[in-house]
């Protein structure tokens, strides 16, 4: 096995869809600026890139065509750098990292940019033309179940109370506020400029005033009798992210800043009506694969699509909550579907170094009933 490393991580600020500051930025422009920013910061020679792999959950409209190729043009990558768009819903840009790692093992390239993007302002969740298979929809409705309903199912089946969900949201915001105040996002954020937006350089979804009190006033968002609210769900978000994936040998040869080494990857399926439990199945699989136990993992980035599923997975896996989402998670920062995988993997890599730990886990749930996981090792 060739050692594969992450040698750079960048993201745009994350903002609320529709009302946030990035709403009027096209997703291809958004991602291109992050890709260009990553190249500049990582000092990689773009001529060496094999492929630009971009994850996107709803690749249509302004995210349509082969948006990765267009992002490559907009970022002024050499014409020789190939580009592909990949969709594994919320797992899309973590999948792009996995694909690069796999290609490297087959000697099919040395350096890759693995990015992700989603403008939930400009391409609605479910897309412009949701056209489910009527027979499947009738016989197996879970296949198309709304994410909110799955979050309620998880809350019910795994006994996650509304107060517990709210506590996770409060904590997520508090950690993000502290990280922001301490300047911990500065190194990862690439400022975005748009003709209608000016320059945007800070996150927009974090709410410093989040408390049990403010959250308890919200109505259930998906089920009149349920426990999941807008405050305990990740917001609809606009954002892009990118990591540089290459062989360790290449990174060393070119003096790149290695954040972490890829130890293992895994994907797994689960019941779509509790898709939020995807991280549990994917993590169990990846731990078996590596022979590690959950206690070996010093840093965990688990995507907070919903507080209910985040908490249920943490409990099921026996993860020490103090190791989870140190700078806040998606409940506070936002969850631009296609961009989250690269964000949490890049974040886990940089946290591994910052915290001086040996192993990091990045994992997330995926609509339709899947989980995806990546284990990183200190380089």
């Amino acid at each position, binding site marked *: 096995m060739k050692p594969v490393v992450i040698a750079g991580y960048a993201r745009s600020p994350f903002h609320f869809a529709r009302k946030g500051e990035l709403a009027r930025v096209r997703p291809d422009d958004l991602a291109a600026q992050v890709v260009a920013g990553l190249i500049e910061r990582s000092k990689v020679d773009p001529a060496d890139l094999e492929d630009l792999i971009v994850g996107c959950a709803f690749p249509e409209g302004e995210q349509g065509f082969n948006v990765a190729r267009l992002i490559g043009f907009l970022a002024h990558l050499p014409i020789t750098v190939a580009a592909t768009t990949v969709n594994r819903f919320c797992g899309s840009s973590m999948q792009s990292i996995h694909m690069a790692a796999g290609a490297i093992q087959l000697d099919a390239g040395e350096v890759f940019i693995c990015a992700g993007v989603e403008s939930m302002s400009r391409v609605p969740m479910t897309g412009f033309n949701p056209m*489910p298979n009527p027979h499947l929809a009738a016989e197996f409705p879970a296949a198309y179940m709304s994410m*909110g309903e799955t979050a309620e199912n998880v809350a019910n089946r795994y006994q996650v109370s509304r107060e517990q969900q709210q506590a996770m949201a409060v904590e997520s915001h508090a950690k993000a506020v502290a990280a922001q105040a301490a300047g911990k996002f500065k190194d990862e954020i690439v400022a975005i400029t748009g003709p209608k937006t000016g320059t945007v350089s800070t996150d927009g979804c974090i709410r410093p005033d989040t408390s049990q009190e403010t959250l308890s006033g919200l109505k259930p968002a*998906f*089920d009149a009798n349920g426990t999941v609210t807008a405050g305990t769900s990740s917001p609809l978000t606009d954002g892009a992210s990118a990591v540089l994936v290459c062989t360790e040998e290449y990174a060393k040869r070119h003096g790149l800043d290695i954040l972490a080494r890829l130890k293992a990857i895994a994907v797994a399926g689960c019941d779509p009506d509790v898709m939020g439990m995807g991280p549990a199945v994917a993590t169990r699989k990846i731990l078996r694969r590596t022979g590690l136990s959950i206690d070996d993992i010093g840093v965990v980035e688990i995507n907070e699509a919903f507080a209910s599923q985040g908490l249920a997975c943490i409990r099921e896996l026996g993860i020490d909550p103090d190791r989870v989402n140190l700078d806040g998670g998606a409940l506070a920062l936002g969850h631009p579907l296609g961009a989250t995988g690269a964000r949490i993997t890049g974040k886990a890599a940089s946290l591994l170094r910052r915290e001086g730990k040996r192993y990091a886990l990045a994992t997330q749930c995926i609509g339709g009933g899947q989980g995806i996981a990546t284990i990183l090792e200190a380089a």
Partner: protein
Amino acid sequence: MAANKNTRQGAAPATIRKAAVIGAGVMGAGIAAHIANAGIPVILLDIVPPPGKSGALNTPNRSAIAEGAVQKLLKTEPAAFMHPKNAGLVTTGNLEDDLGLLGDCDWIVEAVLEDLAVKRALYAKLDGVRKPGSIVSSNTSTIPLALLTEGLPKRFAEDFLVTHFFNPPRYMRLLEIVVGAATRHDAVETMAAFCERVLGKGVVRCNDTPGFIANRIGTFWIQKGTNAAMDLGLTVEEADAVMGRPFGIPKTGIFGLVDLVGLDLMPHVSRSLQATLAATDAYQAIFRAPELFARLITEGYTGRKGKGGFYRLNREAGKRKEAIDLVTGIYRPVVKPELASLAEARHAGQMLAHPDKGGAYARQVMGETLAYAASLVPEIAADIVSVDQAMKLGYAWKQGPFELIDAIGVDAFIAGLEAAGVPVPPLLRAAAGRSFYRIESGRLEYLTTEGSYAPVVRAPGVLLLEDVKRRSEPLAKNASASLWDIGDGIACLEFHSKMNSIDDQIIAMVGKAIGIVGKGMKGLVVYNEGSNFSVGANIGLALFAANIALWPNVEEMVAAGQKAYKALKYTPFPVVAAPSGMALGGGCEICLHADAIQAHAETYIGLVETGVGLIPGWGGCKEMLLRATANPKRPKGPMPPVAQVFETVSVAKVAKSAADAKELLFLRPDDGITMNRDHLLADAKAKALSLAEGYQPPEPVVLRLPGPTAVAGLNLAVHDYVKQGKATAHDSVVAGELAVVLSGGDTDMLDELTEDQILALERAAFMRLVKTGATLARIEHTLETGKPLRN
């Protein structure tokens, strides 16, 4: 070259292209919003927030008051703007930094404090910055015009008049105009025409007397109404019921109306009238300020805007409707009034003659108010028509005072006054043995103050079916609809069924109209002068047939409507629908089949069938699909047009204005909007005539629809709404049927569907729904209560 201050610079503008409102209070802001509704850019200025006032020191924003007013307008219910985007036409500022913005305004309307010194100081300021010849008006309701311009330059007085709007300016049609001795004729003509045509107001010229027309009579009426209720021992419910239906007055009556306008406003109005009216005026004698009313105001019971008024909603008692006991001053649950007069009196005359206390109340209140009104002509207005107009447009009376007296009978009314010992005013006496209005050779005439009759003259550009009907016979007529010749080869299809609901008679008349107009006429306008264009199909008929399981009859009703509306669409002549007020269900569908719609700005159009558990079955689904497919702004793909129509129809969205109706696709982008209700028929007729030249009927269109995949997709969304508690179980059944129609049933994306195929889907879905118990329960409930059943 410096202008010579003594020579006139420029005549009054021919019309108003830009306006300004000074004073961003409730009235000023509302006037600005309405000017914007007419598409006219408007400046809205108010003072710089004084230091020390709440929040003022914290804001460096010197235009905070005007800006705040616009923000508030956007949240006002009922909406001040006909479309939120109209707020973009309002430019805000303050009176210290932004006076320069007034330099190119054709009209500046002042709506500041009712304080003579404040107004005069402002006028001096305005005169320094306004362009020569621009018109300045005041929205004063209490200060005589003569006092306002005292001491101001002659040229200012020449450009000045009073334009008195009623609250809320968008919805209240009355605009009282008062002209000073110095006011230029062309300025008056410009303003009258602009306010009438562009702002859509009913312009009534008044003399420069306190309270002008409507409030002069209205305040007397309210005072009399509260006095008499206390004197005769009527409850507020009884008093309001006696005043309401029998006299054609809104059911708010007296006490409900005071709650609506605000109890706290009344002392201001009465003080000002007391101070300015002659000591001999009848109002002075009846004025009273009951302790109870003062107490209510101090305790915050200022009416609907406060904690409640004479009526309140007791939220602690589970939203119980309560009324105040006028004797004890304590709130108690509302009691349905049970007076013999209310049960027996069908109209004003019978109520006035009734022996019980309801009749006594009517005599004291309406008898004296109508007499008072008759005593005020020509003091407050040149003629009785102005007075009747003012009360109809400003107080929403169905008939003005003189029309009411005619309905009662002049002689009977005089006899009633004499019996009660109320003096009979000369004008009323002069009408003895006659009436205030008469029809002469098909024309409406009114009694002048000289005692002779003169024709009622409509404003230029006004065409009323009411007038056409007086002077001609219908081309065809049945119990629910008539066809009229409105001149120049255009016919008018009028509905006159109960609430203009669409029944088999109307459907039959549609067919008849097509035949008659087809033989040599140029076009057809669908229009009526009811308060609502049509509340929809007469579902009572469908329910009757359904209850005895006469399903073929029900299906025949659906098919007949489809056939008639489709025929209307493909006539060899143009059809223009001209709705005003509500145009719902089947009333909306007939509009959708017209070549063009000329809508009154206050048109509330929508397909509301899902509310009674049905789907639009007379081509409404089909026409909305055609509109959505043709919409150039929609995102690409097979789903967006289907989803857009589904979103509108499944929740029975009703447009809040004609402008909103364009957004919802009920109106097409080039359909016309008429601001003044009285111009609607003329505008629709002109539209029909313009289309008639070289008219070609539309080419039939085919649609490609997504089929079952769309049904599955839409049902997913409905499923989530049910989960969220936003939709009921039967909502999802109805929405499911709607989804089938809008998706094209079992069609494949590659197939083309004709209009008839979509009509067949509508019919089938309608029939499946009408056979469900839950839909029948909805229909029954709505017919009984007028409210939707959420089952």
